[in-house]
């Protein structure tokens, strides 16, 4: 589903935001309200890549990671703070080189670099970074709301397609984050989070000089973290006893990494039973051949979905009908439920009948007294249930 921006409704927040700014008379002109996040040592942020990239430390030895490094690049938040590191595990010595030799689908891990930021951000494929940095090698990376952008030396924010984001969008996004952070700070959320960062830092080795993070070197790539010598520093390659924690980042020894997946997917990677994200009303389900408001024989009525010509029997997939021309949506929420329900039905799970009998509603959200049987036996050419 999509949510459109409505700037006219933002007036209230902007008034609030500007009053906050006005009260803070000692504030530097280019510093956002509440921008006080303390930096995390670079080597600790880099080491957060280890559980994601390598799993549990007992499965790794100094020998098995010899030559590998965590190479990183600073990623800014929409406010312009150095908030994340983008990390690759590679034999190369710099993030730029590692990105060049990485396969498009290789994971790049985002880890937090400020104590008011979560330990982690999304995992993007290497291609996502390549696309951005190839277009603008001198730009800095920006991560906001599950998407990557670049900031040009001139201060413009560009998305992956090279399109410039509107200034009003950027300002609103900044104002939103500042307001959100103030709320998190007031109720103590951020101080609790900071304690977790401090625990992590306490159980990490000190950053080897000259690795210390300095704001002056933001545009540069931080020094790589060498796994064999800095994560397993001083440990003999023979020390591989089960359960022995070899990492100098002691917290890694108590962190549990786990992953899993649904099996029996098609070669496309999709589950056979999953009909996909079909929110629109462009599918012809045979039982819905009947856009007249007549509950007595919905299965045999004629197909059609013009405005004023729709009805409630389409509820399973042909749901629609706000008065919006052909742009009809059931919404991703209901569709996500129906997709999972369909997987269950076709696998015969949890007592879901093969032939589902849908009750037809009346206009007050109740049962109309009429039902329609949706047989599960046959499928359309597209593999959808009829």
């Amino acid at each position, binding site marked *: 589903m999509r949510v459109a921006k*409505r700037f006219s409704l933002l007036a209230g927040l902007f008034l609030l935001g500007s009053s906050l700014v006005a009260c803070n008379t000692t504030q530097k002109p280019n510093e956002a309200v509440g921008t006080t996040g303390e930096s995390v040592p670079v080597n600790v942020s880099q080491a957060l890549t280890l559980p*994601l990239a390598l799993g549990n430390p007992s499965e790794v030895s100094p020998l098995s990671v010899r030559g590998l490094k965590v190479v990183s690049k600073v990623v800014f938040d929409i406010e312009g703070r150095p908030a994340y590191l983008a990390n690759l595990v590679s034999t190369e010595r710099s993030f730029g080189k590692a990105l060049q030799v990485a396969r498009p689908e290789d994971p790049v891990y985002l880890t937090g670099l400020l104590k008011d930021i979560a330990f982690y951000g999304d995992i993007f494929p290497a291609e996502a970074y390549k696309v951005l940095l190839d277009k603008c090698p001198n730009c800095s990376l920006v991560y906001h709301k599950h998407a990557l952008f670049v900031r040009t030396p001139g201060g413009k924010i560009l998305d992956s*397609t090279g399109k410039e984001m509107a200034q009003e969008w950027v300002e609103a996004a900044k104002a939103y984050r500042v307001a959100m952070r103030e709320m998190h700070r007031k*109720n103590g959320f951020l101080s609790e989070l900071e304690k977790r960062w401090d625990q992590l830092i306490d159980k990490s080795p000190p950053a080897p000089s000259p690795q210390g993070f300095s704001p002056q070197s933001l545009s540069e790539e931080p020094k790589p973290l060498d796994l064999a010598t800095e994560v397993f520093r001083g440990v003999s390659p023979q020390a591989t006893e089960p359960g022995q924690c070899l990492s100098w980042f002691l917290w890694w020894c108590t962190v549990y990494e786990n992953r899993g997946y649904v099996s029996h997917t098609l070669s496309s990677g999709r*589950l056979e039973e999953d009909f*996909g994200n079909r929110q629109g009303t462009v599918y012809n389900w045979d039982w819905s051949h009947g856009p007249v408001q007549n509950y007595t024989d919905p299965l045999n009525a004629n197909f059609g979905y013009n405005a004023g010509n729709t*009805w409630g029997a*389409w509820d399973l997939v042909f749901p629609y009908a706000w008065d919006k021309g052909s742009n009809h949506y059931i919404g991703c*929420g209901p569709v996500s439920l129906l997709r999972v329900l369909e997987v269950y039905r076709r696998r015969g799970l949890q007592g879901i009948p093969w032939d589902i009998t849908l009750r037809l509603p009346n206009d007050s959200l109740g049962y109309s007294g009429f039902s329609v049987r949706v047989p599960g036996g046959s499928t359309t050419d597209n593999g959808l249930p009829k």
Partner: protein
Amino acid sequence: MKLTTQNGKNIYNAWISQAMSGKEIAGQGQAVLPKDYAPGANYWLAQNGLPVRVTGDYLRDFDATALLNPYIPITGPIAWVSYTQYTWRTNGLLKDTIGQRDLPAVVLFDSLQVPYGSSFYLHYAPAYRYRLVEFWDWSANYATVDNSKEGVIPRIWGPVEIFLGDYYDLSNGVWRISQ
């Protein structure tokens, strides 16, 4: 079901969308609030005599204005305790549903759509894969929402694995159906 008549045309909404309080937003689609997902789905399932129910958890809700205005989805600050509880519950839901039962779980995330730039999408989609890291008193959870595999709406160069614990978004959740 017919909701009303406008300009001589009948206005309908799907029963399932109506049951989940799905609202048409700015002519761009249907939005279901996280708080309405499980109750609405369960009403519809019960009305149709289907023997499963939806359970799940979400980090924080949006209010109605948030659906019109993505910049103020703040219905209140989140406490550390509710945050950590959320991470453990979603951790359990992902492990049990995808890992143990070998079935997809529905995840919610705020998918800023790069091609559209100015639009924001909340998206619910079945996820087939998860990854989690358990720290001392909270866990970092990821769900995979690969466009080519799970069939979510088009994303160009978006993340493959979505971090479900971003307390700036407050738009993360996991649901599943079971008996």
